[in-house]
């Protein structure tokens, strides 16, 4: 993305995040097939390939694909059980879907020339809002107005409780914001960094030894971050779910 313009080096690390329609240059409506929806579709296809086709043979001695599918299943299963408790296992399908979707969006975004849907706050905020709304509705359905005990800290002295309740309510509304910013910010920062170093390499030409080494290192780090951020997104979903299931402190 770097071009040697007349007055020096021009780096456009953010150009990779522009949402473009796939066909033509028309206006971008919510139904327009764009690069975001294309790569989200790719990650869904990859999920189906791994989890449905990979385990279709149901071998007693699993092959590589089935092994990966089973490992990711038990990874999320253990996470839900340990963080949110046994009674949260009913909601395991939701959490597993979120995990594999975010993971594949992150990892497929590392393919060169691809697009990372999870680098857009619009995508991560939708996911975080889905989690926030479903967890809040679930809390009210399970506990009625008793769910509001989540904000009423009974271990604190009585005069302090209203103040703490305000802070707790505020914290509750901060959570989806930080939940979405964290994922999008991490994805965007790493990709922009790779692009900047790639621009250096493009300018240096054959002497670009150092930028290429750096890109390789950052790429490895990005692969780790792609996984860790999917993990963090999922584990925080579990934490919120636990609050909805057991609102009393």
């Amino acid at each position, binding site marked *: 993305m770097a071009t040697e313009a007349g007055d020096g080096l021009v780096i456009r690390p953010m150009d990779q995040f522009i949402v473009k329609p796939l066909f033509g240059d028309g206006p971008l409506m919510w139904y327009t097939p764009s690069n975001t929806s294309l790569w989200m579709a790719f990650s869904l296809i990859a999920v189906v390939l791994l989890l449905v086709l990979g385990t279709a043979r149901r071998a007693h001695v699993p092959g590589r694909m089935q092994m990966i599918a089973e490992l990711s299943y038990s*990874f999320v299963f253990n996470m839900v*059980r340990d963080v949110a408790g046994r009674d949260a296992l009913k909601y395991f399908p939701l959490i597993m879907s979120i995990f594999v979707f975010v993971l594949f969006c992150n990892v497929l975004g590392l393919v060169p020339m691809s697009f990372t849907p999870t680098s857009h706050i619009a995508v991560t905020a939708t996911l975080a809002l889905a989690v926030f709304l479903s967890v809040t509705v679930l809390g009210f359905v399970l506990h009625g107005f008793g769910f509001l005990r989540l904000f009423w800290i009974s271990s604190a002295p009585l005069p302090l409780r209203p103040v703490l309740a305000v802070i707790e309510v*505020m*914290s509750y509304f*901060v*959570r989806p914001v*930080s939940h979405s910013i*964290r994922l999008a*910010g991490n994805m965007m920062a790493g990709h922009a960094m790779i692009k900047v170093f790639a621009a250096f390499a493009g300018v240096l030409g054959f002497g670009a030894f150092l930028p290429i080494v750096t890109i390789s290192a950052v790429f490895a780090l990005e692969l780790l971050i792609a996984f860790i951020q999917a*993990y963090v997104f999922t584990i925080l979903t579990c934490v919120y779910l636990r609050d909805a299931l057991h609102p009393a402190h």
Partner: protein
Amino acid sequence: MKNTTQSRRLSNLGDRIKSLQTNEQPGFDRDHPANQAHVAWRMVIDLVAGIGVGVAVGFGLDHLFGTLPVLMVIFTLTGLAAGVNLMLRTAKEVSSAEREKSSESDGANPGQSTGQADRGTRGDACGN
């Protein structure tokens, strides 16, 4: 004669399997310091997002009621408090996971026989 060598080989095999099982760490190592960086990021982002939400809510309400600086100041401070609250909660979660881990490693030897079933859960409990 043959029997004793066979039983010795069998017990050797058993030892090898046991040592491999205890060394095995499937998945990635969540206790590694590099993989705990997300906890620090979580705290920082919670703090900043708290202030941001506070400013936004305060400014919106001010805009609605026409009392510009008052509610914004109040809600910014509330947002800061909310961010610190989330930070402290994360710290509490981490420290309780640490305590759980250390108490488990103190009592690890008697629990060795059930290690097979527990190992998966123990590793995950430390990650939050």
